């Protein structure tokens, strides 16, 4: 909401400075977005008189002027304006001044070989109007040498951000009321003396949609003369950022901006029969004043006559019945539209307007008559004409809200001690009627106030929010208690464990291009109905696609080695249509695992075992029982089928998948070279049982452990993990570890077979092993292995 200081002063008697006013605005909740001071824009421009004008020696259309600036010798100025002539009083921009319209900094320069000490300016160059046919001509008695800003009258413009709960401050008068309440002057009363109608209104007005338009008031003014509105009105509209259009239109806009009261003026000559507020009929369209056509539906309220729709009620007038220069008779419309209806219609049509902004927030239902009288007076004053009697269809919802207030609530909720007299004063200054029993009647222009806390807010914001003293929250005795849930502890621990393992945490978008999401989705990707772009459209079903794209961007930028991880949610569509969000950790390893080196030779890429190492290590940090995990197939189509796996706790519970990228996925994500990936499904990691701090009792065994190696020849297809598990389980009392340390196939090993060597660690408990004990254990190991088709290698 923009308005000039002089406009504000038309509603507020005040001597406060611009700075005081701005500070008060901020303090009472009318946030100052900016203050435009035209004096700053016009710095360096002065009132000056042309003394002589002579043809330019080198150019037909230019003249060489001598200009009196009131001080010192006259300046020589080259000018191309046809109206430049001796005796003209105009505006000279001197060297150093910046032309507002184009940002050009003036300097002393030769124009076609003749020195020019500045520029005589047009209205358009100073952003004072559209006129660019010649330079500004001021009255002959304008004081030569005065700063033009002072001559013209500096009128700073405030730009306020009005919160959506304050429709009353979408008019200058309401803003002035707030300032007055805050002690910055006194509010000038509105003079809405009725203009007596001299004849019955010739147009019948009806409302056939009492729900959308409970009240529709109007009157006709005959014999108006439309045309440009007077300068003061144009200046005020311009300060509000509005373009003056014509006197009739400007008058309606003025009433809206000054009092927050939208109104409309129809060209009576273009109306046919009775004018009514009614629901739109299916298929009806309205060509609005913005030149666009809108298809209406029966949920929308319109203003129509016998010929058809003229106006999208409360949002925008129609092109057909708008006022033009030739308009002589007008019908004024002042109506009350239901906020919910206006909001719904505006949303459906995707049409915003100043009127909609006010109606949907709620205009004062008690201000229809006053608004109509103000508008009538303004039009008659500016355009002449003769007003009819007022006609009224329907009734606005006038029932005033009453709030039972307890002034002690200001302290209890607002934390601010304000004495009751001051509270009463503040509420009264804002227009609330406060009864002796503190029953507060809410004025019609404050639809936002409906309870006691709202009144606390009014008192606190006017008395001074910054005067609220800080009060410490009560603190529990002793040291602060831990707050993290088990899931939060695991997430934090995992994040730092991954970083400690050399992985860089990334945060990637929750939404992906549809194709990328589909590539990783089990079913259809879950799409946004209104994505901001095609690249951010489908919810990620996995953390891997986002990380793969990040890896590609890095590789494209020349990165050699990438170890990226992310902890976040993958988003699945639950059976009931609700969200099923699961905490997930993704890792992508791409590029070089080790760079070429003086000791290590060629660069090495990542392989599936790097992925497995991350999966196992991070699952262990997450508290998963990693010793019990089985490696199985089924990582998914995005993985290399022979170099990927899942880690499962039992056949169903998949805790992680890992492995190398499938070449088709690599192609889809435009990645070259080997890429390893891991995805941990943290939602599947079983929660640890709550335990105390004490560990299970333990003392290191006094007897030394014994190591024995076993080399087996096994079928080539046997999974090494199965052999190791069998070996480890062969004698649980003695075997504490079994580790595979050699894999060999080739010379000395039969075709179709391979040799696996396992180091077994045996821990004696009570007494050292005798030779016979070791032999018995070895026997059990060999037997267990034999059940998998393994024979001891000779």
């Amino acid at each position, binding site marked *: 909401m923009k308005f000039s200081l002089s406009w504000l002063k038309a509603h507020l008697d005040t001597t406060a400075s611009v700075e005081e006013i701005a500070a008060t605005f901020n303090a009472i909740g009318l946030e100052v977005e900016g203050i435009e001071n035209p004096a700053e824009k016009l710095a360096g421009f002065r009132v000056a008189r042309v003394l002589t004008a002579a043809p330019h020696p080198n150019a037909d259309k230019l003249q060489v002027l001598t200009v009196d600036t009131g001080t010192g010798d006259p300046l020589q100025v080259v000018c191309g304006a046809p109206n430049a002539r001796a005796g003209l009083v105009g505006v000279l921009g001197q060297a150093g001044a910046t032309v507002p319209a184009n940002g050009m900094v003036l300097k002393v320069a030769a124009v076609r070989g003749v020195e020019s000490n500045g520029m005589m300016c047009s209205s358009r160059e100073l952003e004072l109007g559209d006129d660019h046919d010649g330079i500004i001509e001021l009255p002959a008695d304008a004081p030569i040498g005065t700063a033009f800003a002072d001559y013209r009258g500096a009128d700073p413009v405030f730009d306020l951000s009005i919160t959506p709960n304050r429709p009353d401050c979408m008019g200058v008068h309401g803003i002035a009321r707030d300032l007055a309440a805050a002690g910055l002057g006194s509010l000038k009363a509105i003079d809405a003396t009725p203009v007596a109608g001299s004849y019955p209104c010739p147009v019948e007005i009806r409302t056939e949609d009492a729900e959308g338009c409970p009240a529709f008031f109007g009157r006709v003014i005959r014999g108006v003369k439309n045309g440009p509105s007077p300068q003061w009105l144009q200046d005020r509209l311009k300060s509000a950022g509005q373009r003056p259009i014509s006197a009739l239109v400007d008058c309606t806009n003025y009433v809206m901006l000054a009092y927050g009261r939208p109104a409309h003026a129809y060209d009576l000559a273009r109306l046919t029969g009775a004018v009514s507020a009614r629901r739109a009929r299916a298929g009806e369209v309205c060509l609005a004043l913005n030149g666009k056509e809108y298809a209406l539906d029966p949920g929308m309220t319109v203003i129509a006559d016998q010929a058809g729709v003229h106006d999208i009620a409360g949002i925008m007038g129609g092109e057909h019945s708008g006022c033009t220069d030739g308009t002589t008779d007008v019908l004024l419309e002042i109506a009350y539209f239901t906020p919910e209806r206006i909001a719904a219609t505006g949303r459906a049509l995707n049409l915003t307007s100043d009127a909609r902004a006010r109606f949907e927030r709620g205009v004062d239902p008690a201000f229809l008559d006053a608004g109509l009288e103000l508008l009538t007076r303004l039009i008659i004053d500016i355009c002449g004409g003769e007003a009819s009697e007022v006609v009224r269809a329907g009734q606005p919802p006038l029932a005033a809200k009453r709030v039972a207030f307890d002034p002690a609530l200001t302290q209890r909720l607002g934390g601010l001690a304000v004495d009751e007299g001051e509270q009463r004063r503040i509420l009264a200054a804002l227009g609330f009627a406060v009864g002796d029993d503190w029953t507060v009647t809410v004025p019609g222009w404050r639809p936002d106030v409906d309870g006691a806390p709202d009144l606390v807010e009014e008192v*606190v914001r006017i008395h001074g929010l*910054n005067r*609220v003293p800080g009060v410490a929250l009560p603190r529990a005795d002793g040291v602060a208690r831990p707050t993290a849930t088990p899931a939060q502890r695991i997430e*934090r621990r995992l994040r730092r464990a991954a970083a400690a393992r050399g992985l*860089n945490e990334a945060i990637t978008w929750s939404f992906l291009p549809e194709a990328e999401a589909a590539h990783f989705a089990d079913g259809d990707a879950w799409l*946004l109905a209104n994505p*901001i772009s095609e690249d951010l459209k489908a919810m990620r079903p996995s953390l891997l696609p986002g990380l793969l794209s990040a890896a590609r961007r890095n590789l494209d930028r020349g*990165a050699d080695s990438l170890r990226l991880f992310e902890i976040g949610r993958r988003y699945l569509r639950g059976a009931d*249509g609700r969200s099923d969000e699961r905490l997930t950790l993704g890792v992508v390893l791409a590029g070089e695992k080790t760079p070429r080196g003086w000791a290590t030779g060629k660069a090495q890429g990542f392989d599936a075992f790097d992925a497995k190492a991350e999966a196992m290590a991070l699952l262990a940090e997450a508290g998963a029982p990693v010793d019990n995990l089985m490696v199985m197939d089924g990582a998914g189509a995005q993985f290399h089928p022979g170099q990927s796996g899942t880690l499962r706790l039992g056949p169903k519970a998949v805790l992680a998948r890992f492995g190398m990228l499938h070449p088709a996925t690599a192609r889809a994500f435009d990645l070259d070279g080997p890429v390893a990936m891991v995805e941990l499904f943290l939602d599947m990691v079983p929660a640890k049982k709550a335990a105390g701090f004490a560990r299970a009792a333990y003392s290191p065994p006094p007897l030394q452990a014994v190591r024995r190696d076993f080399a087996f020849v096994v079928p080539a297809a046997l999974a090494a993990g199965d052999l190791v598990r069998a070996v480890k389980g062969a004698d649980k009392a003695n075997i504490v570890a079994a580790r595979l340390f050699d894999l060999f196939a080739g010379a000395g090993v039969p075709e179709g077979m391979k040799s696996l060597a396992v180091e077994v660690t045996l821990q004696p408990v009570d007494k050292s092993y005798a030779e016979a004990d070791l032999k018995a254990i070895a026997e059990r190991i060999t037997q267990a292995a034999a059940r998998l088709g393994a024979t001891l290698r000779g």
Partner: protein
Amino acid sequence: MDYEAERVSAEAAIAGADSLDALEALRVGYLGKAGSISALLKTLGGMSPDQRAADGPRIHALREGVSTALASRKAALEQAALDARLAAERIDLTLPAPQVPRGSVHPVSQVMDELAEIFADLGFAVATGPEIEDGWHNFTALNMPESHPARAMHDTFYFSDKTAEGEDVLLRTHTSPVQIRAMRATGGTQPLRIIAPGRVYRSDSDATHTPMFHQVEGLVIGEGIHLGHLKWTLETFLKAFFERDDIVLRLRPSYFPFTEPSVEVDVGYANSGGRRVVGGNGDDPGHGWMELLGSGMVNRHVLAAGGYDPDQWQGFAFGVGVDRLAMLKYGMNDLRAFFDGDVRWLGHYGFAALDVPTLSGGVGTVA
């Protein structure tokens, strides 16, 4: 026999031995089974007692002297050999050692950990909720009914789905729905202090807005909680977060549907080398105010939607951008870079695994 001459000559020979092999040959020559000194020792048995008394000590002294000379020469030769080996084993330690990759924690995660640490001290737990929400939790329960203009201002991402209750399915536009879930979880019977950090979404994208960003919500419900508690909490939090005592807040009345009264909170900053440094009074020369937090006393309708009796309970809530806090504290200037995964950026602005925020060590990590 001149044992002394023999000793001198032997010691000279030993000193002249230039290898362990030569030394061994000398040892065998003197002290071996057939060695010259061994032979002398054997003569002792055939001597008369007088002669043995005279020659015995000399022969033993000769043997002793030669043994000592052999041992010391051996040690010297071994030391020389070790020195030579070590000299030969010298390597160029200016060659690079194997490099272990340096991992990092994203600044947003780091700041969330910092927030959890600070607020834990004030008794706030960390709460979470779904990011794909329904219209009731995201809007209606927060006092934004269907027709509310603020609802349209939220630039909401929608799905085409509806819940079983016919509610819109949408990406949450703020962390505030977690307030509702946290309140309802207590059954409206207990005081509550939570923060709720997480991802939020708005259909907005320009130089300073991304369609996904992070917010942290704070909520306190209790009996007798008022605006003064809100002010103290925000001041205390910001002082702890920025680790400076000159944090000055400017409270401005504002409007949010879910709070009443509503308070916009500006924080004073100083312009320093093109950067905004939080601290100081925004009205002082070289200073300014920036909007940082939205807050207010929880609206009665919201308390009721959360299952609390608004006549008994009062509370405050606040919300602030986590990315924004990270930028202000650690000096990043481009929000878009947060979500690009550029390893150069992650390495520069990220945090080491061991930079765990603690109250005793300071929650912030010094550059």
